[in-house]
């Protein structure tokens, strides 16, 4: 029974989260549609490897010390 109520809470929470965005997002124009509410998210993302594609290469042993490495040179 406890599991049943736990599931109800979890699933209603998930539904609520989806409904929340359905109610809040009436027009999508790009990043700013999200960052209106998620104030720090865009800045965080611009500091991430998934955006920059470049970063320090601390695990490369024969790489020039201050040269950034990334995902752009591949075969």
């Amino acid at each position, binding site marked *: 029974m406890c599991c049943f109520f736990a599931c109800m809470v979890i699933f209603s929470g998930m539904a609520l989260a989806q409904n929340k965005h359905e109610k809040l*997002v009436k027009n999508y124009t790009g990043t700013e549609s999200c960052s209106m509410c998620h104030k720090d998210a865009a800045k965080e993302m*611009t500091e991430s490897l998934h955006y920059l594609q470049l970063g320090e290469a601390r695990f490369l042993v024969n790489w020039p010390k201050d040269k950034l490495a990334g995902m752009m040179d591949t075969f």
Partner: protein
Amino acid sequence: MGHNWIGVLQPKDATKPAQPGGCGVCHTAISAKPSLPGKITEADYKNIDCLICHAPNYRRGVVKEGETLKFWAPNGVDVLKAAQNVQKPTSEMCLRCHASAGGGPNHKHGVIPTKDSDVHAAMGMNCVDCHTTQKHKIAGGSDLKAQDLWDVKIDCSNCHKAGVIHKADATGYINKHVARIQCQTCHVPAAARDPKMPTIVSRDWTKPVLNQQTGLYGPTNMPASNVKPEYRWWNRFMETPPEPVGSISDQKSKITPWKRTAYTVIADEETGKPVYIKAGVYAVSGDPGAAAKKGAEDAKQQYSGKWKGVVESMVFSMNHQVAPKTQALKCNACHSSTGIMDFKKLGYPDEQVKSLTTNR
């Protein structure tokens, strides 16, 4: 290899539709190439495609807005509905880019996790369950050139704790292996174990092949399934060109499986050095020489104008497609005179090789 960042590729066969092109297709920017680290501007804050990582059933193409090209939902994708359904990234969202990294499904590492090939995917686990996140930074494996979260180590032992693993082995022998052998060595016995999703073991850029469906050219790929790994010592550092660093005498090194792929790349005939080819020119024309000429021009690279093929190789870590324990390597897979492990090459002295290759 040089790429376009964003572009539209119109096949020579005008009956084929134009297709989105460029590396940016799979990166999180909406339009412009990201600024360099430390030089981020306000424009970058508006250049994030939140939906590519957070929206289910979303995909994007290249659309023209005035004179600018941008990555955006093409006709047939309801971008508003996608935005209204955002959620924590699922594997479907991660794999929409990562599954086809390297030009096709499962081409690079050969261990894309699917329900048919990976025990964790079969359980319904998502990528971010292991690749934990902090403020949009994602923990990755250390064979990557760069990392988001240096202090977070992705490791099987984050969940599978010592003292709990291999409980069925009353002798304790299996657990003795853990100090010098990665879990993946036994539990990821091959790449591309699912025959529906082969990987590639070689790629030849000197031999363009026309894709009849898309009308675009690509290199000649050699697909293969059930690809046996190369076993090497690895201490979590890499060399470039990519080779694992480690040795039998380095106590931080463990025997680790790698998938090796041979690439014949376009090089300057005079110097033998690889040339930055322009991938879009190659895709449309199928002409390696034209792609090299344009690529070298764009990259301001010295190039004689004459090219030849040069073979380079690359190793890829094998951290996914974890097999059910019934399919993990058994003792005699390595410990036999015909075993898969080349103990001599790994640096074991002859006397020890003799002992290690005796059946258990």
